């Protein structure tokens, strides 16, 4: 009798541990088993990604519509090549839209923002956004400011 109750509690304890572990894996570290299969991917090249990371969010008008899948160095163009997946429901992004690396807050994480263009054609799987704006790198900004101040 007593043992049976204890065994039940041990079982619940282990289930609780498992639930906590799954919570940490899925919700906290964002590990998804189906890697956004219902989306399409697009790419873009940047001069400087300035601290953008995998799984950074991609937003339109501040709303998250996708995430960065991979970042690699493109030897051919001497640029960074960013591949991102976009939710399949967001299927009307004009081809001449532009892409910028933004920062949430002063020291917050980097993310991508899409500014909508005017073309009738829309981006499809594998397409590229050509109009990109690199991250604002603080050192460069200060450097530019000093240069222009010195020029006057």
């Amino acid at each position: 009798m007593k043992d049976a109750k204890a065994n039940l509690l041990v079982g619940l304890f282990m289930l609780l541990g498992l639930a906590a572990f799954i919570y940490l894996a899925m919700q906290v570290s964002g590990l998804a088993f189906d890697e956004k299969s219902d989306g399409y991917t697009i790419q873009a090249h940047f001069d400087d990604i300035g601290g953008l990371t995998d799984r950074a969010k991609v937003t339109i008008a501040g709303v998250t519509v996708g995430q960065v899948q991979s970042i690699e160095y493109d030897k051919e163009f001497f640029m960074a090549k960013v591949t991102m997946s976009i939710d399949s429901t967001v299927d009307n992004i004009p081809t001449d839209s532009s892409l910028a690396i933004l920062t949430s807050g002063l020291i917050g994480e980097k993310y991508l923002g899409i500014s909508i263009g005017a073309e009738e054609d829309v981006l499809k799987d594998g397409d590229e956004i050509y109009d990109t704006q690199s991250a604002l790198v603080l050192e460069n900004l200060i450097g530019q400011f000093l240069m222009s101040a010195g020029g006057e």
Partner: protein
Amino acid sequence: MKTLYSAIYRHIETVGQAGVFLFQAICRLPVRYDEALKLYFRQIYSVGVLSLIIIIVSGAFIGMVLALQGYSILTRYGSESAVGQLLSLTLLRELGPVVTGLLFAGRAGSALTAEIGLMKTTEQLSSYEMMGIDPLRRVVAPRFLAGVTCMPILAVIFSAVGIWAGMLVSVHWLGVYEGSFWSSMQQSVYFDTDVMNGVIKSLVFAVAVVWIAVYQGYICQPTSEGIGRATTRTVVLGSLAILGLDFLLTAAMFGDF
């Protein structure tokens, strides 16, 4: 100088004996697996289930405090959405394993030492021996294995509860936007380096604390005073071991060298 050498020698000897003790405890296979499993589950009950309340309550409070502190600092830089990142990384990498370990040493470790020490004092361990039953296998092994199983589970629960409670505070009380709370967290937390390293840490702490606890109980002076001293030593040595190991593990896991 001579006393120093002999003190060092004695300490090394103690570690050696404790190592042999542990080795014997876990390498002597049980005669009956159903019986061994029953003992193991009983110990999981007393080591794990009974520690659950303190772990959940502490986890919740630490998560809430972290959210408050993190928010008050981050909001100065307009980055309060990063509170999720701060909360989850601190809990998963450090506070989850370490605080769970310290609480575990105080709650379960001391109980293990006292229990085994009392068994020794009341000749129960001798009694097992005289029955031809190995007390290392019967008494020590299930307690050790149960302790090593329970601590990572408790640490994971601690972190999950802490993050959840911190989320309640920052999202529902301080007004951090929920979407950015989670996305900043998911973006910076990696399953293998953060979640799994935390689990590995707590596993290492578990081995250290439970080993100390059962060994101290086993070698204690068979008197009430001896049990008291052994219990204190379990908590002190266990806590120091956790903090020391944490430094080493953190350097190995997250240090860039």
